[in-house]
């Protein structure tokens, strides 16, 4: 395995003083790094938003935008918040150094910077960044970026919190029968295409896939990150799924393969969202009555012969934005009283 500390890194030096810029650049180049410079915070932020850097060496006292303001902006920027920052300055007063660290600076070095110390601190920062990047990459592969972000912000803890959100269940109709007629390799290929289409429709509307069970998906809108109109987002996502599957079916028709049909159940309300499982293996999910209802509604699509069924809460949130048909009350397993069920009208392809 390559030594993580030795590779050249791309560094940005921000200092309004030319002597300081030249000196720091020289020291860093002698250590084998590639260096770009900016003469104030505003220019630096523009550069960072244009091209990637591995580390920022930041002065504090600067005209136009000082180092404190840069640290504040970086902290608010989802793309840049993980960029390690080493402050190099000659700040008067320890409270200013404390402020840098509190604003997210990884380290503080007094100017003139001792080259040996500089090298050690940069090496340590870069290695930490590489480990963090690697970890994030692993998390991304098994979770959505929203969950990855939530894990990063709040850390991992089993247990949940009450949220107001929308849950969706989807399922391929008659998948088991379909799978029996197909060689397993083709089934996997079909599933992967199907997941790709479904995931696009989910993430495009702000949802996250919580569970994949065979051909079924459980999707959450409004957690872990709040989503203003989670009901409508979920329904629009469902409509996009139906539309996408219709296009996919045209391809399958042309290839002489059987069509697939999906059923979608959606319910909204309070639920408990969080990490369920064990400390070793857990998933981000939602639990509660609303979740059960969404699952039952999905199952009920077979009976109702409609592709998208929603509950009364979701229906009410939609207002008049989308065409909806009331199907009356339906007894749902696990519910003492029958619930109002609505079908979302799928626009006919033109």
């Amino acid at each position, binding site marked *: 395995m390559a030594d993580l500390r030795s590779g050249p890194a791309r560094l940005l030096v921000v200092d*309004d*003083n*030319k*002597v*300081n810029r*030249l*000196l720091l650049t*020289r*020291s860093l180049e*002698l250590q084998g790094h590639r260096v770009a410079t900016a003469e104030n915070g505003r220019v630096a932020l523009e550069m960072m938003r244009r091209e990637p850097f591995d580390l920022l060496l930041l002065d504090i*006292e*600067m*005209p136009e935008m000082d180092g404190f303001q840069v640290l504040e902006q970086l902290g608010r920027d989802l793309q840049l918040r993980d960029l390690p920052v080493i402050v190099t*300055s*000659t700040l*008067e007063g320890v409270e200013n150094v404390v402020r840098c660290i509190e604003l997210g600076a990884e380290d503080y070095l007094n*100017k*003139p910077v001792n*080259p040996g110390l500089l090298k050690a601190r940069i090496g340590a920062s870069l290695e930490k960044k590489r480990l963090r990047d690697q970890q994030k990459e692993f998390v991304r592969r098994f979770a959505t970026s929203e969950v990855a972000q939530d894990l990063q912000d709040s850390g991992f803890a089993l247990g949940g919190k009450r949220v107001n959100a929308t849950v969706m269940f989807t399922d391929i109709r008659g998948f088991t029968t379909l799978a029996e007629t197909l060689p397993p390799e083709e089934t996997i290929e079909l599933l992967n295409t199907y997941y790709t289409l479904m995931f696009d429709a989910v993430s495009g509307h702000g949802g996250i896939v919580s569970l994949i069970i065979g051909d079924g998906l459980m999707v959450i809108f409004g957690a872990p990150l709040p989503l203003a109109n989670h009901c409508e987002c979920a329904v629009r996502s469902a409509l996009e799924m139906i539309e996408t599957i219709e296009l996919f079916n045209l391809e399958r028709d042309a290839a002489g393969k059987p069509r697939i049909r999906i059923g979608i159940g959606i319910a909204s309300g309070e639920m408990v969202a969080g990490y369920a499982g064990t400390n070793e293996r857990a998933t981000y999910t939602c639990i509660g009555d609303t979740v059960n209802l969404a699952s039952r509604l999905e199952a009920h699509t077979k009976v109702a012969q409609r592709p998208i069924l929603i509950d009364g809460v979701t229906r009410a949130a939609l207002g008049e934005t989308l065409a909806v048909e009331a199907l009356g009350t339906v007894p749902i397993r696990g519910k003492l009283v029958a619930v109002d069920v609505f079908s979302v009208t799928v626009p006919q392809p033109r």
Partner: protein
Amino acid sequence: MPAPTIDPATFDALKEATGAEFALELVDTFLQEAPAMLAELRRSLAAQDADNFRRTAHSLKSNGNTFGALALGELARDLELTGAAKVGARGGEPLAALEAEYARVAAALAVLRHG
């Protein structure tokens, strides 16, 4: 014995760390940049532009320390901490002291540059 205008140990360490040729180029850059910084101190003192006064003094402090001009660095730090208002109230005397020290530093650096 008064402190030397340029602390030899600091200046040698700079040459050691960055290479002698680069260190001398850096001296040139400083000698080019410093007059504008002194002018900016005068301007911001007259205009009572406290931010620019503090920032410029801060830069001079940092550059002085880089080359081992420790007395200059100390005088600049004094300006930074005192601020434009109080320096103005004292008739600009601390700035005059810094200007005099800079003249000595510039002469000493010129000798190092060509010596």
